[in-house]
């Protein structure tokens, strides 16, 4: 099975979907002649031409709105944000236009549009370029939000996003683009939106996570396996709609849960997961659920401070040991 990067997985998904449906086009800053700020769109301009791979001015609100208008008129836009940090400027179009058009028109105007780009922190990009937006974006009815953590999931979820009749937000990760994974090239990979995946099977503790944190969760599971602790790693993959069934299935199996997320604590993804757990698994819990998340501060620049702010393996392991009552003192 070929091993490819997350970046190439996205690139293949875009290419295949653009070949499959000529209504699909890619628009954003530096996507065409520059081949993408992170090279996700490499080669697409040459293959599909400037009408379908469109460089824009630096005007996130404007080109997000252009995407919405194109979708209203029957196209299937893929709008790339150089990062979701810049997409905050465009949220009026994402939240007020794309998410609500179908509902406000009572079904007359579907919105088959994808907004995608890297989300969350990379390395030392400091406060304005290091934010994980999934809890903000997942709050809005009308949107779907996917957060692929592996190359396979990146390809399968982006393809599904492009084929979906609804606005789908694809949150990628700058730190993920170079990661590698097995992605078969002899079959069509389309991952249903809204379905979580058990990435590692275990019966001692559930570790529920998404996006970039999936890799961290797997490292933690590997490390704890050496001590004989079997972690059930649940990758949400889609944050909205959230797969309550697999969360509940896992916690009923392990009776303990840690929720690991990249973003901040208050009103975070973990808060929602904990709510589902207490509703669905109250009688199964042997310990309060513990959350691991970013420190409640804007991201600092200095290496040591940044490290301290981010969720990491040590914090996650400590949380798992806590819910297993392994560190009683």
């Amino acid at each position, binding site marked *: 099975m070929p091993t490819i990067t997350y970046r190439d997985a996205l690139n293949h998904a875009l290419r295949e979907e653009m070949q499959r449906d000529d209504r699909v086009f890619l628009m954003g800053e530096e996507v065409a002649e520059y081949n993408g700020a992170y090279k996700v769109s490499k080669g697409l301009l040459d293959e599909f031409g400037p009408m379908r791979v469109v460089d824009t001015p630096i005007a996130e609100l404007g080109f997000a*709105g252009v995407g919405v*208008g*194109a979708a209203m008129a029957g196209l299937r836009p893929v709008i790339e944000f150089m990062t979701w940090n810049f997409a905050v400027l465009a949220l009026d*179009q994402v939240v*007020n236009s794309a998410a609500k058009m179908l509902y*406000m028109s*009572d079904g007359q*105007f579907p919105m088959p549009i994808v907004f995608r780009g890297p989300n969350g922190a990379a390395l030392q990009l400091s406060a304005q370029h290091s934010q994980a937006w999934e809890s903000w974006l997942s709050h809005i009815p009308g949107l779907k939000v996917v957060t692929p953590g592996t190359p396979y999931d990146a390809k399968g979820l982006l393809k599904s996003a492009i084929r979906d009749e609804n606005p789908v937000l694809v949150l990628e990760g700058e730190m993920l683009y170079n990661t590698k994974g097995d992605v078969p090239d002899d079959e069509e990979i389309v991952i249903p939106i809204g379905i979580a995946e058990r990435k590692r099977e275990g019966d001692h503790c559930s570790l529920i996570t998404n996006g970039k944190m999936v890799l961290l969760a797997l490292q933690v599971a590997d490390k704890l396996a050496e001590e004989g602790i079997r972690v059930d790693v649940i990758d949400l993959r889609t944050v909205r709609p959230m797969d309550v069934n697999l969360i509940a299935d896992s916690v009923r199996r392990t009776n303990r849960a840690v929720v690991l997320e990249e973003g901040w604590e208050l009103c975070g993804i973990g808060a929602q997961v904990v709510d589902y757990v207490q509703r669905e698994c109250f009688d199964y819990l042997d310990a309060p659920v513990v959350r691991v998340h970013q420190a409640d501060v804007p991201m600092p620049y200095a290496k040591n401070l940044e490290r301290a702010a981010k969720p990491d393996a040590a914090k996650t392991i400590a949380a798992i040991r806590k819910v297993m009552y392994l560190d009683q003192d």
Partner: protein
Amino acid sequence: MAKTKSRPAPSRRRTRPADTGDVDLRREFLRSMLLQRRFEERSAEAYALGKIGGFCHLYIGQEAISTGAMSVLREDDYVITAYRDHGLALARGMTPRSVMAELFGRSDGCSGGKGGSMHLFDTSINFLGGHGIVGGHIPIAAGVGFAINYRKGDQVCVCFFGEAAVNIGAFHEALNMASLWKVPVVFIIENNRYGMGTAIWRAMANQDVRTHAASYGMTGESVDGQDVFAVRDAISRAVERARGEKTPTLLEMRTYRFVGHSMSDAVSGTYRTKAELETEMKRDPIQQLKARMQEAGEIDDEAFKALDDELKAIVQDAWDFADASPEPELDALYSNVYAEDSAVGD
């Protein structure tokens, strides 16, 4: 600071008077404008009775713009506007029943009772809304133009917004891309001189809004928005330019709303004077057209009254229809949040 209440110097005026068409066209215009007027007068009444809720922004005084504009569009062209949308929807061909039922929040409304006054939609006439965030729909119009070019079509998208939207970033981002990419869109500023209760001179450094066209390398024109024929002429030229040359145009329609911003503010006395209102109402587009037709012997008081009675009856019928239309089923609460037919696997 001096209060510069005077309007900017008139910009390029065409010396040739506007084409006033034939008598049938004039009758059609009178009918269209008067229908909008009577419809909205009854809307105000329904609002006072609590049959219409929320925000309700009336178009009274601005009907020459909707009427003149729609008269030059093809059926397959696109129309998009902001929240002051009743008149434009009616002029485009939405039925009074469908609009009134929407205002009443009933299931037979054009948006199933889910949009309300600010969100009128109708795919069958390419009416793309009814948008509630000032300026938010201007980039959407550019996107519709982009899609027309993408499909190598020859339709045009006409986008209406108030002059206050000129102060928001979305306007500038949209005009830049529209001109850069040569999309067939006509941007129409309905300059009624007040953004809610803030006079243009209190909010805008450059009140000659047409001049923004030059910043983006497109044609701009200012038009007497109370003269339905001048409106028709200017929009006709812009639509031709869009269809033929694939270039956008920025038009300023100088108009005035004879009512408050919405139902909650006084018509005059707070942010504008009664004297100003009375002066502007002398240029009522409906009265101007009526006078012109009377002079030409094309309509007399009796015929006007017959038309007026007919339109009032149509509006009464719309009211009765809306009143009798059922409220949306409670199931509708959760319908159309998401499109159910996913294209996956097709």
